[in-house]
């Protein structure tokens, strides 16, 4: 021991003590402090008060031991040993009471508790007598009073209750299925066993057993530290973590103390004059170096021994940074996973987003969960109301074995199968955005208080980040949708525009041709008339003059025809009429055609054509329609036949030298393909129509090439009119033709159904 100059007697006293004697005092102070801390934190709960009581008992024990070890007279020893028992007699009762906090209480246990306190009080009084302890036993490592009968009873009492509380714990262990509970209980059993078995060694010298009893003094310290930590952390578990932390701190303290003591002894050798100053400096040094040495130990421990030690502030800060830097939900999920994985080392992690409309969760990110193809999880009402709505983290171990209704149970079973440990809700302003789902940690540890605190802190930020990402996604999608809509609208506009352009083009074409058609006769009329006016015709022979007069008249007629045609064409396209119109009437086609042929008589004679009109023996079935339009259509067809059939016809048989005639045959009868229709056939042996021109024949302004030779003034509108009229009457018009041989035009029109005429079916013959 160090020997110093005479100073304060207390300090001298202190310096004269051995470690053994000092230790109880120091640990007393430590334990009492712990008790006060716990009491402060848990003022209202039983845990706090009971634990504090235990620490008081320990203090009594330790103080008594301290005094006992420092005094020498028997009388003093007995006095102080009895002092110790003031506290020790209450040990069984208070321990038992304390243990009941962690296990269920029932009538029996309550009864036992009351009995315990009764006994404790009894032994309290008994311990003042000689029936309890008296006399002194000195042995190698210390002193103790000798036990008597009262003490024997006390021993029975003591160990009865210790076994009782251990029994309670064991029953609890067996009955609970919750892993976390089991570990809690193991920890408690361990703590209480350590306390009482090691602490109990202190009783042995009372029975004259010489044993290194000071070891028992470690028990209260160990127990206090373990309990304190567990209680403060609230969750009482993760013994490994407790031990790890504890050991890191212990190592740090040992390092500091060793160094300090070493420095002190060195200083004492060389600077003995400045002992106090040196002490002071060393003290400051120790205080200052504790923190860095501790974090150094942490880092070493983290790196080489344990992986679940981490700096929560660092994790939180890092996550904040990462969350601020991205708007993409995938990146967010990745960042969270990275950072939290470093801290927790979980086996699996997932981020789910909540769909408000469908009231279900979609998996946004999954690392490690065996989901297969499952992307959607329904929202369970119970879990939602109980935990998620209140932004409370779900600890799966704690809820999984309780009783639930069928739906919730199903959901919980699914989650259990996936090995889910923790579900942290992500809420922004009372709106649920999604969930963070954690699987078990690799190390098998549970998620302790600090982990959960980190989660809670990070939670809010993550929720906001994910909401922002979702909004961003929505905006992007909206933009895409907008773009598509605009494209579609543009496309529609473009095609409408194309249509308009085509129409416009068609109109322009029509106008071009129409103007040309109109100008042709006009130019002749003007030319001729001007020549007459200028006297150019005066000296012409009369026949020639006649030719010119005729020219004016014919061209004027032509002009009118063209105007008429144009009016027809434009009115047809402008107005679609139907046979249901009021102007519809019942028409006899035979009569109609006969009338037209009458009008064309002159022309027919002029061209020396033969025209035959055939119809079935019976009266031709009547049709319903608009007379003028139908008349127009048939005029066009018949005039075409007349125009394009030369007087000699075209079906000239080379071998025959006979003069052929131009022949037009018109037949009326039932349509063999559709017995509800009447069919009109107009067959000529005229110039025919080239195959190339057939497809466009019925289109506006389409004229067959060879038609232009035969009849230069055709407008190309005639057949267009025919088609429009026939279509409008729900009929069909078509043509069969061979160039150089002739054409046959077919018109099929529906028979008027109210017709009472009994019409026999027959096939038209040629």
């Amino acid at each position, binding site marked *: 021991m160090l020997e110093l100059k005479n100073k304060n007697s207390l300090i001298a006293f202190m310096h004269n003590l051995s470690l053994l004697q000092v230790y109880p005092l120091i640990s007393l102070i430590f334990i009492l402090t712990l008790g006060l801390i716990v009491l402060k934190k848990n003022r209202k709960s039983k845990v706090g008060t009971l634990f504090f009581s235990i620490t008081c008992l320990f203090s009594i024990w330790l103080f008594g031991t301290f005094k006992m070890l420092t005094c020498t007279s028997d009388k003093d020893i007995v006095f102080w040993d009895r002092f110790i028992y003031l506290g020790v007699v209450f040990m069984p009762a208070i321990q038992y009471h304390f243990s009941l906090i962690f296990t269920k209480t029932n009538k029996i246990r309550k009864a036992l508790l009351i009995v315990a306190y009764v006994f404790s009080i009894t032994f309290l009084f008994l311990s003042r007598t000689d029936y309890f302890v008296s006399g002194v036993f000195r042995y190698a490592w210390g002193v103790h009073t000798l036990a008597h009968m009262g003490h024997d009873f006390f021993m029975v009492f003591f160990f009865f209750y210790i076994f009782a509380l251990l029994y309670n714990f064991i029953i609890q262990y067996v009955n609970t299925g919750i892993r976390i509970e089991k570990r809690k209980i193991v920890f408690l059993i361990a703590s209480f066993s350590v306390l009482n078995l090691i602490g109990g060694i202190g009783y042995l010298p009372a029975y004259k057993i010489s044993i290194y009893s000071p070891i028992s003094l470690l028990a209260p310290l160990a127990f206090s530290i373990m309990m304190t930590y567990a209680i403060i952390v609230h969750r009482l578990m993760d013994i490994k973590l407790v031990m790890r932390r504890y050991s890191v701190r212990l190592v740090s303290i040992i390092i500091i103390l060793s160094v300090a003591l070493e420095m002190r002894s060195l200083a004492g050798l060389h600077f003995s004059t400045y002992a106090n100053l040196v002490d002071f400096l060393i003290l400051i040094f120790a205080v200052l170096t504790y923190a860095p040495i501790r974090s150094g130990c942490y880092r070493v421990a983290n790196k080489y021994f344990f992986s679940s030690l981490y700096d929560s502030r660092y994790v939180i800060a890092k996550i904040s940074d990462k969350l601020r830097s991205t708007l993409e939900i995938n990146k967010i999920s990745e960042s969270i996973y990275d950072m939290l994985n470093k801290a927790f080392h979980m086996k699996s992690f997932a981020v789910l987003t909540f769909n408000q409309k469908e009231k279900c969760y979609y998996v946004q990110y999954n690392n490690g969960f065996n989901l297969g193809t499952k992307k959607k999880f329904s929202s369970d009402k119970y879990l939602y109301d109980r935990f998620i709505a209140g932004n409370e983290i779900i600890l799966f171990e704690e809820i999984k074995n309780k009783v639930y209704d069928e739906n919730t149970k199903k959901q919980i079973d699914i989650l259990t199968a996936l090995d889910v440990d923790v579900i942290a809700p992500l809420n922004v302003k009372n709106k649920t955005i999604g969930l963070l789902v954690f699987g078990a940690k690799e190390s098998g540890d549970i998620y302790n208080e600090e982990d959960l605190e980190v989660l809670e802190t990070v939670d809010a930020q993550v929720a906001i980040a994910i909401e922002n990402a979702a909004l961003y996604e929505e905006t992007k999608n909206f933009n895409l949708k907008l773009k598509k809509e605009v494209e579609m609208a543009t496309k529609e506009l473009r095609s409408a525009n194309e249509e308009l352009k085509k129409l416009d083009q068609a109109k322009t074409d029509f106008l071009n041709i129409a103007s040309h058609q109109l100008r*042709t006769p006009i130019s002749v009329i003007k030319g*001729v008339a001007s020549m007459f006016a200028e006297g*150019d015709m005066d000296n012409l022979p009369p026949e020639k003059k006649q030719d010119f007069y005729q020219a004016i008249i014919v061209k004027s007629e032509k002009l009118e025809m063209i105007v008429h045609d144009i009016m027809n064409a434009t009115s047809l396209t402008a107005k679609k009429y139907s046979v249901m119109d009021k102007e519809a009437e019942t028409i006899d086609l035979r009569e109609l055609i006969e009338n037209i042929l009458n009008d064309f008589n002159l022309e027919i004679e002029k061209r020396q054509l033969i025209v035959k009109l055939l119809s079935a023996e019976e009266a031709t079935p009547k049709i319903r329609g608009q007379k003028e339009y139908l008349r127009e259509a048939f005029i066009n067809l018949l005039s075409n036949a007349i125009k394009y059939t030369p007087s000699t016809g075209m079906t000239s048989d080379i071998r025959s030298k006979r003069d052929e005639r131009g022949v037009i045959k018109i037949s009326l009868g039932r349509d063999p393909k559709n017995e509800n229709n009447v069919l009109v056939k107009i067959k000529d042996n005229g110039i025919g129509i080239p195959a190339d021109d057939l497809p466009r024949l019925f289109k506006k302004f389409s004229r067959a090439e060879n038609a232009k030779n035969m009849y230069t003034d055709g407008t190309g509108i005639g057949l267009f009119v025919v088609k429009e009229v026939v279509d409008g009457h729900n009929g069909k018009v078509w043509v069969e033709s061979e160039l150089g041989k002739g054409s046959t035009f077919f018109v099929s029109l529906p028979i008027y159904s109210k017709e009472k005429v009994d019409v026999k079916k027959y096939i038209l013959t040629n």
Partner: protein
Amino acid sequence: MTRVLFVEDDPDQIMIYEVKFRLEGIDLTVATEEKEVFDALAKEKIDLILLDILIKEQNGLDILEKIRKEADFKKLPVIVFTNFDKKETRDRAESLGAIDYIIKAQTYPREMTEKIKAFAKTGIYTKGVSNKSV
């Protein structure tokens, strides 16, 4: 005497100009199709062509294009004389070196003969007609 080649298939027009040109002392050759055009150009000395566009199955400007391919007729004056009015057609006529594009219905035989006579005399041709509708 100026000889005009009238490329036209409308008999009434031909009738008018045969009389008129004769009265005014202009020689007239008529061609109603491509073959006749080239025959005429080969046989006679043509000073000016009055060219219609819609001739039977043919397009007057196609004929003109062929005419222009011959070295002799590259500079032969051509007036397009038609009732067909379309911008593309006018442009094509211009690109083929037509000196004018006249709508028959907008003019009179007298006006035509005056223009041709003036051109023959002075070598200067005045474009356009008086009764041009806007």
